[in-house]
């Protein structure tokens, strides 16, 4: 057995691992594992108390099994027990198990936190280290809640050991990343900044990461770190290669720390203090100089570490974008790397130059490397490097080199990897449009794109060429001629047929004078492609034909014959059939004048941002493209203003799509048809999908519903003082998920509500409208809380004027404070005199517990962790009920949000289910609530589950929400 046993050998573990390795098949492995699991389970359950060593061994075996990819559902308790062991080795295994597996089992979090607390307080640096590692590895919110206050103290305490400080700094960093709200800024922040001066380089290394992350979010607070970082960096770069002893790595002094310091400086603009600024410039120059020195070692580690610092320095130079001299030097350095024999360096140089190209100081310098980059595109063997070359060509493109770059990209496209073709197509299309001086070049380029990579030409690209041709009359004749020629090819891409069909339908007349492209020839050419095309393209061609009827009356009968043929008039596709029928009819009955009007040339499209750019941005993620574009825009005045930076919502900026419909007025004869099943239809859907949720009504009915006549007639207006409560429960329930609307209405009076809630407080405006022309006298509204309700809900109202004129409205304010959770609703009683009769009515005032909800966003993991924590049967209330309204997901979502909880997407593994979380705020306490709603469409039923820490709350929320669906 080859087990290299260091420290304590756990022989049982080694034997087990050997066994697993000797398993010949997956089945054998599973069998062996199951045997082991059974064994461990029986040991854990056995009467005999296990000693610490055995516990450790078994926990370690479980861990091994888990890391092999098998599920582990026990052993957590034993691992937690190990945490409180006094033996380092047992504790260590316990912590490792917790670090790796705690996500899936969190009921023990309290016990774990306790053990951690003890170790942190132990003042034993090894134990403290283990505890801090565990917090940093788990990094959950619960841990942040428990320790985010404590760790800064450990970090800045004078007597903390260096190694503990290092762990504490990174531990805090992890907690800040997961729960920034729980890490309080305070006195400690200034002391943390001074760790940059610490004499222990390990402490500085750890602290710099923490400071960088904190500074990104709170730049003001950490501003002093700039000068400290500069002086630290300066000391490192000027030190001799041996000064820093073990922190020198292959003759490079403290490369990790240098990179981190340079990164920290990128959180800030260039230093204002000239002395600091001068010192930093010196540092950067030194780093650039060192790159020119002969290497101190041939080892790749030496050059990697050295160049890591160099690239980070260049990033900082680019970030500052203020020292032309440094920028140009950086560019030259990268230029050298472009031809380096190390692939990694070529890759990084291409990447880094991309950002340099956007600086006005270095743009020209970058351009000088164009030949090298083009060469890289042709010769690099690694696709990821070629990808970088494409990016760089795109970034360095301007009017002076656009023709060359576009030509090279088109060249490359012929052999490019499939994975990057679409992106290249988009880039070529954008560059061609942006830098077109001569639009014939643009048209040629796009047609080439379709010819070379038709499959990768998205709709945005061909829509765009049509828009441009329509908007620019100087290019229309050329475009018609070019597409006509391109269509001569025996096999041409369907996208070309679309562009060709559209353009000839509009501008075919411009080339019809040439006998080689007479109307009939144009028509026959297009029609020869017809049968090979998909339905949307055929639909488009039919529109071209009807346009031809207008453009070329001489071939009208030929076209009518085609339209009349069975394959058109009786086409199985309704869209095609309908077009054929309608176009045929139109061509038969309409006079020439009408035809000319209906089939007039398309009006110019409004100038908008190219949707291609939006698409590229979406593909590459925000940032990468935007920045370059914006800077470039400043440099180059746009010819047609069409390449403006996208507005924030990329998907909402869409080109008006020519779609499959050629007719400007085309909508008229086609109104009855269903939307064509073409992909252009889906584009429109996309555009609107963003706003769909905003449009979805919050409540099932609009406010008007409340005034429905049956309600008005069912209310009770009695002569006698009555205690009938207007139970109109349905109305009451409608307010559970909304705050404004009409609460009550009869012939005399309308009561409207407007309310707002925040944490445990709320304010409600009640509007009383006199619908008659007669005064109400002795008008007295009173808000009544029952004895049960009184201690839980504080309501304060101001009296209103006892006289309400005919047609007038008075307003009353109710201030609300939720003291503790409550079940009932307060009653609003209104008494007044109208025309000699006494009126008395009562309605429930919709102040419900859920109004004090604050939504809580959380990750799937957190959700399930909490969900499990609330597994006590008393904490859960479930209701299964029949749907009372159509089961529409969007409406349901809106209701859950209206209910007050956060709607958590992608938490429930079943996307049809809805999951929500929030906190009910009362004066005395806060109650965390989780909810899950599972619709069953087939049965038209819902199952609603509420889990909160308080039974009554679960009960009440479940009642309230069940009424909503």
């Amino acid at each position, binding site marked *: 057995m*080859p087990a*290299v*046993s*260091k*420290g*304590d050998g*756990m022989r*049982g573990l080694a034997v087990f*691992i050997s066994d697993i*390795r000797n398993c010949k098949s997956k089945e054998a492995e599973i069998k062996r594992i199951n045997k082991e699991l059974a064994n461990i389970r029986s040991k854990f359950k056995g009467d005999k108390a296990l000693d610490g*060593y055995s516990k450790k061994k078994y926990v*370690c075996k479980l861990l091994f099994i888990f*890391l092999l*990819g098998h599920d582990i559902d026990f052993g957590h308790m034993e691992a937690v027990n190990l945490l409180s062991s006094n*033996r380092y*080795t047992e504790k*260590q*295994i316990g912590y*490792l198990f917790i670090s790796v597996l705690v*996500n899936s089992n969190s009921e023990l979090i309290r016990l774990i936190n306790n053990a951690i607390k003890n170790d942190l307080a132990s003042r034993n640096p*090894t134990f403290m*280290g283990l505890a801090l*590692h565990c917090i*940093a*590895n788990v990094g959950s919110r619960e841990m942040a809640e428990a320790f985010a206050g404590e760790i800064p103290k450990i970090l800045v305490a004078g007597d903390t050991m260096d*190694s503990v400080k*290092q*762990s504490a700094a*990174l*531990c805090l*960093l*992890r907690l800040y990343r*997961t729960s920034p709200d729980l890490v309080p800024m305070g006195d400690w922040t200034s002391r943390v900044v001074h760790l940059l001066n610490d004499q222990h380089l*390990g402490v500085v*290394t*750890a602290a710099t990461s923490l400071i960088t992350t904190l500074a990104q979010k709170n730049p003001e607070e950490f501003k002093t770190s700039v000068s400290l970082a500069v002086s630290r960096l300066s000391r490192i770069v000027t030190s001799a290669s041996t000064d820093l002893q*073990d922190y020198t*790595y292959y003759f490079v002094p*403290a490369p*990790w*720390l240098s*990179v*981190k310091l340079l*990164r920290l400086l*990128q959180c800030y603009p260039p230093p204002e203090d000239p002395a600091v600024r001068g010192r930093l410039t010196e540092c950067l120059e030194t780093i650039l100089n060192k790159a020119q020195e002969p290497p101190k070692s041939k080892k790749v*580690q030496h050059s*990697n*570490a050295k160049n*890591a610092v160099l690239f980070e320095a260049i990033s900082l130079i680019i970030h500052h974008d203020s020292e032309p001299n440094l920028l140009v030097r950086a560019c030259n350095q990268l230029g050298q790397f472009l031809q380096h024999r190390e*692939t*990694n360096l*070529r*890759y990084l140089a291409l990447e880094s130059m991309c950002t340099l190209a956007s600086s006005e100081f270095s743009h020209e310098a970058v351009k000088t490397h164009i030949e090298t980059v083009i060469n890289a595109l042709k010769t690099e063997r*690694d696709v*990821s*490097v070629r*990808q970088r070359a494409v990016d760089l060509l795109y970034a360095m493109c301007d009017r002076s080199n656009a023709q060359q770059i576009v030509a090279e990209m088109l060249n490359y496209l012929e052999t490019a990897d499939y994975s990057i073709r679409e992106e290249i197509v988009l880039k070529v299309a954008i560059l061609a449009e942006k830098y077109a001086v001569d639009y014939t070049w643009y048209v040629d380029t796009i047609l080439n794109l379709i010819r070379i990579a038709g499959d990768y030409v998205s709709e945005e690209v061909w829509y765009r060429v049509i828009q441009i041709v329509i908007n620019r009359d100087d290019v229309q004749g050329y475009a018609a001629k070019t597409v006509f020629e391109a269509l001569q090819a025996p096999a041409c891409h369907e996208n070309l047929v679309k562009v060709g069909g559209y353009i000839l339908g509009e501008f075919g007349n411009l080339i019809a004078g040439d006998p080689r492209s007479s109307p009939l020839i144009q028509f026959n050419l297009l029609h020869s492609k017809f049968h090979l095309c998909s339905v949307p393209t055929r639909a488009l061609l039919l529109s071209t034909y009807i346009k031809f009827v207008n453009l070329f009356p001489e071939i009208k009968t030929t076209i009518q014959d085609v339209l009349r043929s069975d394959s058109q008039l009786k086409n199985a596709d309704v869209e095609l059939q309908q077009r054929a029928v309608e176009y045929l009819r139109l061509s038969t009955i309409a006079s020439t004048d009408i035809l000319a009007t209906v089939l007039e040339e398309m009006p110019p499209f409004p100038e908008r941002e190219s949707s291609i750019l939006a698409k590229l941005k979406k593909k590459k993620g925000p940032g990468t493209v935007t920045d370059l574009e914006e800077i470039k825009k400043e440099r180059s005045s746009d010819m047609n203003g069409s390449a403006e930076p996208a507005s924030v919502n990329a998907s909402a900026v869409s080109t008006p799509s020519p779609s499959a419909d050629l007719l400007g007025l085309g909508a008229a004869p086609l109104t009855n048809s269903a939307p064509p099943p073409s992909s252009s239809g889906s584009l429109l859907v996309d555009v609107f999908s963003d706003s769909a949720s905003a449009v979805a009504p919050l409540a099932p009915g609009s406010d008007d519903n409340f005034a429905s006549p049956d309600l008005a007639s069912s209310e009770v207006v009695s002569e006698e003082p009555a205690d009938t409560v207007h139970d109109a429960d349905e109305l009451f329930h409608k307010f559970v998920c909304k705050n404004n609307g009409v609460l009550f209405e009869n012939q005399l009076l309308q009561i409207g509500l407007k309310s707002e809630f925040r944490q445990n407080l709320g304010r409600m405006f009640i509007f009383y409208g006199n619908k008659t022309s007669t005064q109400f006298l002795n008008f007295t509204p009173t808000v009544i809380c029952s004895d049960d309700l009184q201690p839980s809900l504080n309501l304060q109202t101001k009296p209103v004027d006892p006289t309400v004129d005919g047609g007038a409205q008075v307003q009353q304010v109710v201030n609300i404070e939720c003291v503790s959770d409550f079940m009932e609703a307060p009653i609003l009683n209104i008494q007044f005199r109208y025309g000699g009769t006494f009126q008395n009515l009562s309605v429930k005032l919709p102040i419900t517990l859920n109004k004090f909800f604050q939504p809580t966003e959380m*990750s*799937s*993991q957190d959700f399930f962790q909490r969900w499990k924590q609330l597994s006590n049967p008393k904490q859960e209330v479930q209701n299964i009920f029949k749907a009372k309204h159509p089961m529409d997901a969007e409406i349901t979502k809106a209701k859950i949000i209206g209910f007050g909880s956060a709607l958590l997407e992608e938490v429930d593994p079943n996307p049809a289910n809805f999951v929500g979380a929030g906190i009910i705020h009362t004066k005395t306490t806060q109650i965390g609530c989780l909810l899950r709603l599972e619709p069953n469409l087939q049965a038209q039923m819902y199952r609603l589950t509420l889990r909160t820490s308080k039974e009554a709350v679960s009960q009440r929320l479940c009642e309230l929400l069940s009424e909503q669906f």
Partner: protein
Amino acid sequence: MQFMLLFSRQGKLRLQKWYVPLSDKEKKKITRELVQTVLARKPKMCSFLEWRDLKIVYKRYASLYFCCAIEDQDNELITLEIIHRYVELLDKYFGSVCELDIIFNFEKAYFILDEFLLGGEVQETSKKNVLKAIEQADLLQESQNEDWGATS
């Protein structure tokens, strides 16, 4: 750094360290995808690749691939040297480390990594200091084992 994976040429995962919260399902999916992607690459290819919105930095040592996922602004070359330093640490600790050492002493591989990287950031770059921490712990273990006598 978002995570680090060690896997063999056969695609067997030997070590996984996650610095961002992910579900077990996501972790398995990511691992499968990345192991496939990296194993499919030819030698001599660049050590960096774009993957989702992350940058992958990987390097092969004998039969093992070391693979790190870093964020957009992170430095690729220094990450490559993080990998190398970790390999050096393992090598020094085990004495000419091989894949079997990491299989049979996986817990040690995790402990060493925790001393070197914490929360996805470099904690201590000095080889001496990292190994000192681990060896001190081992000493603690050994003295305790002696107390304990022979157990298996």
